[in-house]
């Protein structure tokens, strides 16, 4: 059964229709790519899935629950987590603190227990730290725990965003251009990481990606958006041959040059 079901979702901004009647289904434990030229509406789709925007019309269902219109934190609690195209870390907090914020839902400390600092609380916090360290190591940030987020290198920041999202322990993870601004070596690491998310953590991953090499390399299923419409979907090799996709990318050259390289 599909873990995510997007049903006839539209979103308009003051006349501009950023998404128009888009429907899609995502199977559990798959890696799905969302591609399309700049301004196609990919990030808008993520914003709708995570509650940053409400759809103008349409419904979003996740694991049999309707999630559109829920407040952000309830969507996180429902099991969806994300990263951001323009990195949005808590930049004056350390790497490990960023991850610990991600584990917020899995801790229970409240004002009273915080003041009393009960053994139970201390233990729970210790475990959270432990697992944050693990998570950081998982994304390749071992040893960077106490670095302030804004002091991290660009690629590290992207990975920290993933670590923070993982700490939410989502069942579906949305990655918005995880390899943007990375060199080929870093991109390869990222692909490996994304695969591990699914293979080791059994997560469903949806990613927005421009580099065709990454898309073709890691995605099992692809949805193509253009001008807010879904113009194609299917397995990577099929989508690549789709006439409408080629037209949408015509002139951008992205599909040809990067696909070939």
């Amino acid at each position, binding site marked *: 059964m599909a873990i995510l079901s997007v049903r006839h979702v539209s979103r308009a*901004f*003051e006349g501009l229709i950023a998404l128009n009647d888009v429907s899609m289904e995502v199977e559990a434990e798959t890696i799905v790519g969302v591609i399309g030229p700049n301004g196609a509406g990919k990030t808008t789709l993520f*914003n709708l899935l995570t509650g*940053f*925007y409400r759809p103008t019309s349409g419904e979003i269902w996740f694991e049999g629950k309707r999630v559109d219109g829920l407040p952000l934190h309830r969507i996180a609690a429902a099991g969806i987590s994300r990263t951001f195209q323009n990195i949005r870390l808590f930049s004056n907090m350390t790497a490990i603190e960023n991850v610990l914020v991600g584990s917020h839902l899995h801790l229970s400390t409240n004002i009273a227990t915080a003041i009393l600092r009960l053994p139970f609380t201390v233990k729970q916090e210790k475990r959270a730290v432990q697992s944050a360290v693990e998570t950081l190591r998982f994304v390749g940030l071992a040893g960077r725990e106490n670095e302030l987020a804004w002091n991290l290198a660009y690629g590290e920041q992207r990975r920290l965003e993933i670590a923070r999202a993982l700490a939410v322990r989502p069942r579906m993870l949305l990655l918005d251009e995880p390899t943007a601004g990375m060199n080929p070596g870093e991109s390869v690491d990222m692909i490996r990481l994304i695969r591990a998310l699914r293979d080791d953590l059994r997560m469903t991953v949806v990613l927005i990606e421009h580099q065709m090499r990454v898309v073709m390399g890691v995605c099992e299923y692809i949805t193509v958006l253009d001008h807010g419409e879904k113009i194609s979907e299917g397995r990577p090799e099929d989508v690549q041959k789709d006439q409408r996709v080629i037209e949408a990318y015509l002139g951008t050259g992205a599909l040809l040059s990067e696909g070939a390289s």
Partner: protein
Amino acid sequence: MQEWIQLLIDGITIGGVYAVIALGYTLVYGVLRMINFAHGELFMMGAFTGYYTLNGFEKHSSLNDSVPVLTIAIAIVLGMVVAVTLALVMERIAYRPLRRAPRLAPLISAIGVSILLRNIMLRATNAQGKVYPKVFPRTAVEIGEIRLLYVQIFLIVLSFVFLGLLYLFIQRTKAGVAIRAVAEDRDTASLMGINVDRTIMTTFAVGAALAGAAGVVYGMFVTTATSGMGFIPGIKAFTAAVLGGIGSVPGAMAGGYFLGISEAISTKFFGAQYKDVVAFVLLVAVLIFRPWGLFGKREDKRA
């Protein structure tokens, strides 16, 4: 009926003041996304300038009696000059260095400027209010039970004039277009060759000029200038700007009159001592239920 007309006229009088001050908030907010907390103090400084000017004429000449139009005009112009100068100085010193700082920083800085100006004037005047010389006859036009002071008519007319001039300035002049462009998108405006620093200064200057002028006229209306006089009208004007949808010029004008009239009418029901409460309640209600303003369009909260 006559009572209602009286309330309406009183509302329009004070509403005009709010509208003129509100423009300063709305313009600055438009370009900087910042509430210039010290804007009400520019109004106060205008009122003091008006007092010192008119008092000077009173003491050293008889011009106030022979050509009051001239002395009043001079007072207004000087009030504008002082307010503009102060606004440019505060922009340069207290706000510009914080343009890329976290959001609260310029706000706190503005609160600092506001406290500073208010207390400098408190010291400078030894905590004594300054009473304006009688330039306007304190006589009134009376129609039935409706009373309308001359200075009130002057105030009403003048606020219309200022609002009209500002509207033309924003719509028709190059500087006005630049202000609108920066308000729309600072970075794009900068790419299109608009000098953003200069435009921000123009915005402060225009807002301050209006506040300074309003201060002088309001001072003549209430006949005293005190160091604290900018505070409540400042908050009210901000409320007006919010009512009209902050960032919107026509909204601020409409909001000013709306607030003035609501306040005047509320005095009939709750008494004058709750006037300020009414304004605050309106402010809170609008911020909660229609944060984009009574007249504005809804915008998405999150970018």
